[in-house]
């Protein structure tokens, strides 16, 4: 006979520690029978009484957890805050590092620069999932083994937030823009436009890879460092303005000079398109020079103005 009570008791005992299973089973069975008797004693029919009693006792897994004094939470209040802080901290850099490494490995070791961005994104996602999983697992185990955590003390208080001139969002946006710009150079070389006859042509003269393009890339990488330094200082300072001026000029001057001497664009590409050949290339160069100069000057004026503003 497989009554509801049998099923209920079996379901409860399933997750109760084995040595106590039999005793808890006998006691629970007696208690259920007593409760049913209590209801049939006042005129209820036996089946309804059984259903109501078991409903009152509730989910057997939950009852078993109460018997075993087991925690019904993955990570409880004691560990949650530490878990959350550590998780956020690790997720700020682990996926980024893993993504960059995967991308670089794909581009260099595997000789497949075209797939580098995809590999980087996949690597970053995987690292994020792995980080979250393992950190959570460690804390779930700690929760169940009552591992002691160092007590909080006042020295851990963070600095009160300062009024920031340079916000995290601004810095992140700048860094993303710089990374995209850096990525553009190899991208235009390896994944260039397909022209009408199906051949692929880099936009920038490949001859420049021997000197000028590495220089420009180095300047962009230095710009990344500047962004980090700027964020850490929280506001523009005169040394930062000076470094920015040097870096901006180190980028803009070669670009303008290469444009004006017709050396930036790939000559094969110019040959391919009639409007470029027929003087269009000069128009492109003139517009690009004006835009580059405009951006550079505006950036310098803006940073200098912010550095002059007194600290809030």
């Amino acid at each position, binding site marked *: 006979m497989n009554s509801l009570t049998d099923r209920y008791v079996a379901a409860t005992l399933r997750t109760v520690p084995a040595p106590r299973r039999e*005793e*808890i089973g*006998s*006691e*629970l069975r*007696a*208690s259920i*029978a*007593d*409760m049913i008797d*209590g209801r049939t004693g006042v005129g209820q029919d036996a089946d309804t009484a059984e259903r109501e009693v078991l409903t*009152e*006792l*509730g989910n057997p897994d*939950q*009852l078993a957890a*109460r*018997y075993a*004094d087991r925690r019904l939470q993955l990570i409880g209040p004691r560990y949650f805050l530490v878990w959350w802080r550590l998780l956020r901290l690790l997720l700020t850099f682990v996926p980024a590092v893993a993504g960059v490494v995967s991308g670089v490995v794909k581009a260099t070791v595997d000789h497949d620069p075209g797939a580098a961005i995809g590999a980087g994104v996949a690597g970053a996602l995987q690292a994020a999932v792995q980080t979250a999983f393992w950190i959570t697992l460690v804390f779930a185990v700690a929760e169940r083994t009552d591992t002691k955590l160092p007590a909080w003390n006042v020295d851990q208080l963070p600095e009160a937030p300062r009024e920031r001139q340079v916000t995290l969002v601004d810095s992140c946006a700048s860094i993303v823009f710089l990374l995209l710009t850096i990525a553009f150079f190899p991208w235009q070389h390896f994944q260039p436009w397909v022209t009408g006859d199906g051949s692929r042509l880099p936009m920038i003269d490949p001859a420049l890879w021997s000197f000028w393009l590495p220089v420009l890339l180095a300047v962009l990488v230095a710009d990344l460092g500047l962004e980090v330094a700027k964020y850490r200082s929280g506001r523009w300072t005169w040394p930062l303005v000076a470094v920015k001026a040097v870096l901006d000029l180190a980028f803009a001057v070669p670009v303008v000079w290469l444009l004006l001497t017709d050396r930036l664009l790939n000559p094969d590409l110019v040959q391919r398109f009639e409007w470029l050949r027929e003087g269009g290339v000069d128009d492109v160069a003139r517009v690009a020079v004006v835009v580059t100069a405009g951006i550079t000057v505006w950036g310098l004026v803006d940073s200098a103005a912010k550095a002059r503003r007194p600290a809030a």
Partner: protein
Amino acid sequence: MVSEEVLRTHLQELRRGTVVVASLVALRQPDYGYALLQRLGAHGFPVDANTLYPLLRRLEEQGLLTSEWNTEESRPRKFYRTSADGEAVLARLLDDLTAVRTSVAGLIEGEDR
């Protein structure tokens, strides 16, 4: 007016510890789970069965209750009784309950004790 939900949470918090006190008092006279449930309910301590049964086991493991199987009646039942340790803990708990009542009364009258 505060919501029923808020009120119920506070009442639950207030009542939580008193189930242990009530059980230790009631089990000076040995009894089994369901009968204790009925007795507590009749004396104004409504307890859920799924709270009380595991609680009895826990108190037994802590040595505050002793137990004995009674097989004389139609169905074997486990009878619990408050142990000597249980009495000692109960005395402390009752003292504390009195202290809480005194403190609250003192606050209400606006006097320092």
